């Protein structure tokens, strides 16, 4: 556990890190960013908490088991979405033109259009959850591991 200054700053900063990460995930399909980048940013927030508070505090509620569950669910959603288009072909964008994320952005100058992209934004969100949980789990497991504990799921 680090000094009070670090802990306070980390406490305040983690919110902004979270918001920025989620922003990157949400806008992955119409601007730079995406599931992996956003998820990595959120996981870096977890690393910050880990450094500031030490692994003892975090492990109480952020267990590897829970993180693995989230990561697996995200990956499952991704594949199920890909399978959803199998009526025409695997990975077919079946949501395009429907009310759910169905818009088509006009190419050329103009602002991004969040309500577009069909299954792609949904996949980005699923990937985002997988990556944030997966990377946090890796860091957490390594932190506990270097402390000499064995990891059990």
């Amino acid at each position, binding site marked *: 556990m680090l000094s009070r200054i670090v802990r306070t700053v980390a406490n305040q900063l983690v919110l902004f890190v979270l918001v920025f990460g989620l922003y990157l995930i949400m806008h992955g399909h119409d601007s730079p960013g995406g599931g992996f980048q956003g998820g990595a940013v959120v996981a870096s927030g977890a690393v910050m908490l880990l450094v500031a508070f030490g692994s003892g505090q975090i492990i109480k509620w952020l267990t590897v088991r829970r993180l*693995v*569950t989230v990561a*697996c*669910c995200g*990956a*499952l959603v991704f*594949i*199920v979405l*890909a*399978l959803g*288009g*199998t009526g*025409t*072909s*695997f*990975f*077919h*964008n079946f949501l395009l033109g429907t009310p759910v994320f169905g818009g088509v952005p006009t190419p050329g100058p103009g602002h991004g259009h969040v309500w577009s992209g069909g299954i792609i934004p949904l996949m980005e969100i699923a990937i985002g959850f997988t990556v944030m949980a997966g990377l946090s789990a890796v860091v957490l497991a390594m932190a506990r591991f270097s402390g000499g504990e064995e990891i*059990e*799921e």
Partner: protein
Amino acid sequence: MDFLTTHAPALIVALPLLAAFAIPLVSRAGHSARSIFSLAVLGATASLVAILAVDVYSTGIRVYTFGATLPEMALPAGYTVPVRIMFQVDGMSMFMGIVITTVALAAMLYSLQFLKGQSGQPRFYSLMMLLYVGMMGLAFTGDMFNMFVFLELASIAGTGLAAYRTGMADAVEGGFKYIVISAVSALMVLFAIGLLYSQYNVLSIAALAHYMEYSMLDMMALGLLAGAFVMKLAGVPLHMWAPDTYTVAPAGTTPMILAASYTSMYALYRVTFTLYGGHIDTAAIGWIVIIVGVLSMFIGVMMAVHQTDIKRMMAYHAISQGGYMLLGVGVGLAVLADPVALASYGRDAINGGVFHIINHVFYKALLFMTAEAIFFRIGTRDTNKMGGLARNMKWTTLFYGIGALAISGIPPFNGFASKLLIYQTVLNFSPVLSAIAMFVSLVTLASFAKVFYAAFTGPEMPAYREVREVPRSMLIGMGILAACVVFFGLFPGLIVDTIVAPATEALINQTGYIDAVMGAVP
């Protein structure tokens, strides 16, 4: 049924991938739920492979484009280059698919009992599924970049499996060596892909082969790709990682990692035949493959006789047998530009090399499993400490005998059929190489006889008086493979005609592969 046939290429990869991420959740419901779930998914995938195989062997090459309005539509309307990710399944891909699926089924059955009571089992089954996905994707993909991605996927999953027993120092070391050589060679593959992309701005293998100009950069890329794949398939002198990794991987996974090596061999053939096989003289790359093959055969077997660890010896034999495949196909590659030689012996040489892949994977998987069965019961892999095991492990002894006779090329087992093809065709190309191949078979027999004598025969050791036969599920896994070995030995003509000849045809027929995608482009 129609739906399944159409979407089989994608589903074969998607189903195990889905299972890989579902297994950690399913396994919370208990051991048997997870076992049944894994087996059911693998069984369903195997039946999809069978459906796809029937389709591919009757109608020819299949193209599956991801996300397109029609899976067969390789080129979007108005485009002259493929832009979407696609799978291209021809005879050779299907052949690899059959090999991998059979091995995966046997390995899974074998592992069910083997793992009982060990920790971290959800990870084990997830990694098995991921390794299967990586190998199948590598065999099916029609895209250079996806080749890299699936190669890395297979490497990561393979490492996880090789280092599964993290409590053992040697297991961790073997896994680490595997991931280092995999990462470096895969990065070289990516570098070569970058070189190719910089010139043609496409990634599809068919489109690349269509536009290929055989410039300096192309030849450099070929060198990088060939070197990297030889590293992954453990050809001498890049073989040193293989004994380390194969030795430490737990039971059922060693055959899977072995199959992953042969998927890299498939990638080597795909690159040399399909990507570069068109208009240049392939003699140079053919001779490189032949030299690597002969070195692998000779050094692999000489090192194997010397080993005391039973799995390490088998790993060196795997390198040595890999040399036979490279020799057979290398001869075909060297005469690819010469139609007369190709028709008279080149095609049969490739047949032999390809046939040896499936034969070798089966009997080597069987041998690895018997070695691990011994380890399971007596807790050591050192042949110096074994003796008289045949008295209590009758089935294991029988399976070891079948595997040993098959690998030494003793008729009527399957090893003899493919080795005969290789000897006789290579004799036409160069008698010296054929003589070396026969000598290597002799030493192989000698080394397996040594282990058979030391481990299974002899007086009953007091320490092993209480040793029992391994559990039934392990015996079933070995039994399936032993039955395949005997069947393939008795009916080699059937196997060669139905699955090996289409694979050879697919390798030689470069225009067919290109036209399946680029047919409409002038």
